[in-house]
């Protein structure tokens, strides 16, 4: 168990910059999710930590050890692939024993450790089978066992649940979180699924186009997204983004969203005064719908476009001008498409972004 530290690590493939100047610390024993869309560089980041790729520049440390130029077989990391990458010509037992046999451990110690980890992952009865005779969930467990059996300093997981069906994914997700807490191994988990990241991780690293967008706890990236990308990526459905103008009202800066004008209090209005335009954002679950504007709320008039019924809730899509806005409502609320309604949001739930830099103005120093 060890702390993993990256210092301005970049990775280029020919002219393509896959990762740009990444500086990150994964604390000892922590569970970190690296979250990003496909092609964002998240798997590249994981492979750099595993030693499969060498960084084009920058250094990587495991604790005090500089591992930048160390090959993967010397790093003592456990890696679980999206497709599990079990060795098809070996039984489950041999797959799990493989890392220990390479270390030339005594036979009885190998046997003891294989059975121990098999018990931990509930696959004791599968040891004699071949990978082709296992279901997806079973293969996933074997891959985990193979990664854990060598007692790695760092456990790296590359979308380990994405090949499983939805129900199994939620079940294994909970087991995985418990297992990580019990073993206390520094774990780095790559995923494009934000619900997995929010559910599992102590900390989330949001990455896009090779650059770190935000690092924070699940609460932080959800409640205080650092930029438009994070706001538009996290949440299901993600945050609504509406372009708005800054107008002056009795000497202070106010936000004009369509016909609605909202005048915030002092520190925020001072920040807003520096812009002509902003992007207003709020989460679909933070808004309500009403026939009338609500008191002490920011109310925006909109036309109902469509209603999606999901059982435990409905998602109403409305048009504010030409901008689609989604609102999550109770299952009983089913407005008619075409009808005019007011979207009511508490002022504290509004977020404002600079359209140029895409930064949340909360993070801009005055």
């Amino acid at each position, binding site marked *: 168990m060890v702390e993993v530290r990256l210092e301005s690590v970049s990775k280029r493939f020919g002219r393509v910059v896959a990762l740009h100047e990444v500086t990150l610390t994964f604390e000892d024993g922590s569970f970190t999710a690296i979250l990003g869309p496909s092609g964002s560089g998240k798997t590249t980041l994981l492979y750099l930590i595993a*030693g499969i790729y060498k960084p084009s520049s920058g250094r990587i440390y495991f604790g005090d050890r500089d591992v930048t130029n160390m090959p*993967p*077989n010397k790093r003592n990391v456990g890696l679980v*692939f999206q*497709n599990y*990458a079990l*060795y098809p010509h070996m039984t489950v037992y041999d797959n799990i024993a*493989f890392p220990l046999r390479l270390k030339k451990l005594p036979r009885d110690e190998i046997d003891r450790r294989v059975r121990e980890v098999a018990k931990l992952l509930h696959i004791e009865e599968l040891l004699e089978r071949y990978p082709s005779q296992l279901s997806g969930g079973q293969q996933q467990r074997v891959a985990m066992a193979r990664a854990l059996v060598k007692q790695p300093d760092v456990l790296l997981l590359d979308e380990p649940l994405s090949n499983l069906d939805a129900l199994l994914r939620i079940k294994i997700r909970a087991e995985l979180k418990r297992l990580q807490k019990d073993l206390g191994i520094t774990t780095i988990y790559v995923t494009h699924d934000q619900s997995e990241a929010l559910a599992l991780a102590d900390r989330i690293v949001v990455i896009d186009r090779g650059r770190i967008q935000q690092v924070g706890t699940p609460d932080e990236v959800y409640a205080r997204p650092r930029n438009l990308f994070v706001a538009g990526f996290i949440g299901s459905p993600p945050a609504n983004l509406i372009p708005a103008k800054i107008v002056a009202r009795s000497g202070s800066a106010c936000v004009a969203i369509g016909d609605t004008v909202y005048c915030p209090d002092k520190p925020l209005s001072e920040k807003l005064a520096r812009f002509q335009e902003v992007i207003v954002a709020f989460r679909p679950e933070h808004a309500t719908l009403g026939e009338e504007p609500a008191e002490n709320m920011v109310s925006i008039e909109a036309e109902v476009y469509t209603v999606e019924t999901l059982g435990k809730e409905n998602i109403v899509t409305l048009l504010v001008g030409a901008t689609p806005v989604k609102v999550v409502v109770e299952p009983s609320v089913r407005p008619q498409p075409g009808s005019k309604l007011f979207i009511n949001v508490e002022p504290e739930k509004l977020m404002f972004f600079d359209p140029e830099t895409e930064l949340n103005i909360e993070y801009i120093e005055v």
Partner: protein
Amino acid sequence: MKMAGRNAALLFFLAPAFILIALFYLVPLAITVYVSFTDMQNWSLYTLRLLPNPLFNYARLFHMMLYDPDFVKVVYTTIVFTLVTLAFNVLGGLGLAIAVYLMEERLSGFFRGLWLLPRMTPVAVYALLWYYFFLGSRDGTLNAILMALGVIDKPVQWGTDPRLLPWSAWAIIIYVNVLVGVSFGMLIFYSALRSIPWEQVIAARVDGASTLQLVRHILIPSIRWHIMFVTVWQLLSLLTTYAHIFLLVEWGVVDRWWSSTWALYVFTTAFGLGGGGPSSTYQGLAAAAAVILALVGAGLGLLALRLLGFRRMIVPPKGEL
């Protein structure tokens, strides 16, 4: 009605292949078997009549195996040439495939191209190259090099000097064939290695495997079917190949009998050998030898298919017929 239509369709699609097989395989096979029961000589049709004892040629071959010193050389040469060349072709092909697999892509392409050159060169040109290389006079490339280096002071008859036989002749014919044959295994093994999922190789690295351990525990076990296939295929083709050896023997750069494999013996017995070769040709005897070779090949082939589990490889087609 429906069945009749189905049979007509089957016949239509199978006929071209069947006609070709019949014309170029079954008919010649039948003729060869028939000729082997005759005493045909010098392509004379007068001699093409059944012998009083139709198995005389076969008996003669077995007698030669025991008492004809030249034919004994042919038998030894066949066994040594086939087994040693096979080992080099399979193991060498495997080694080359693994080496180019582990290389960087650009370098790997260059080496693969290089090893394919002998296969792309026409047989006569390729044989001529090695004819000059191993030539016994001072113009032979090998002699010229060794003399320039001062290793030898007069030219060596590499393929025919009795003091070096049979080893030197065997070494030459094996060397010349391996250089062509090894690329077959390399190609098959390389493409098989490339089809191993990349993640499995990475997983093995992360699990702690050195390059040697990766080769031993992951790469070779993953392509064991390909290795068996290439072994069988090469065994059968080495039993019947003679083109390169024939030219080297014909041009006299290697000893005739210590370089004649069974297949070449069949050819030279039936068609003769230029230069100092015998003037008479014996088609009846050659046909009997050819039949024995075909039987040995078929036996080994069937045995190999059993070992390979041929039935397991033929999967019934999915979907409707």
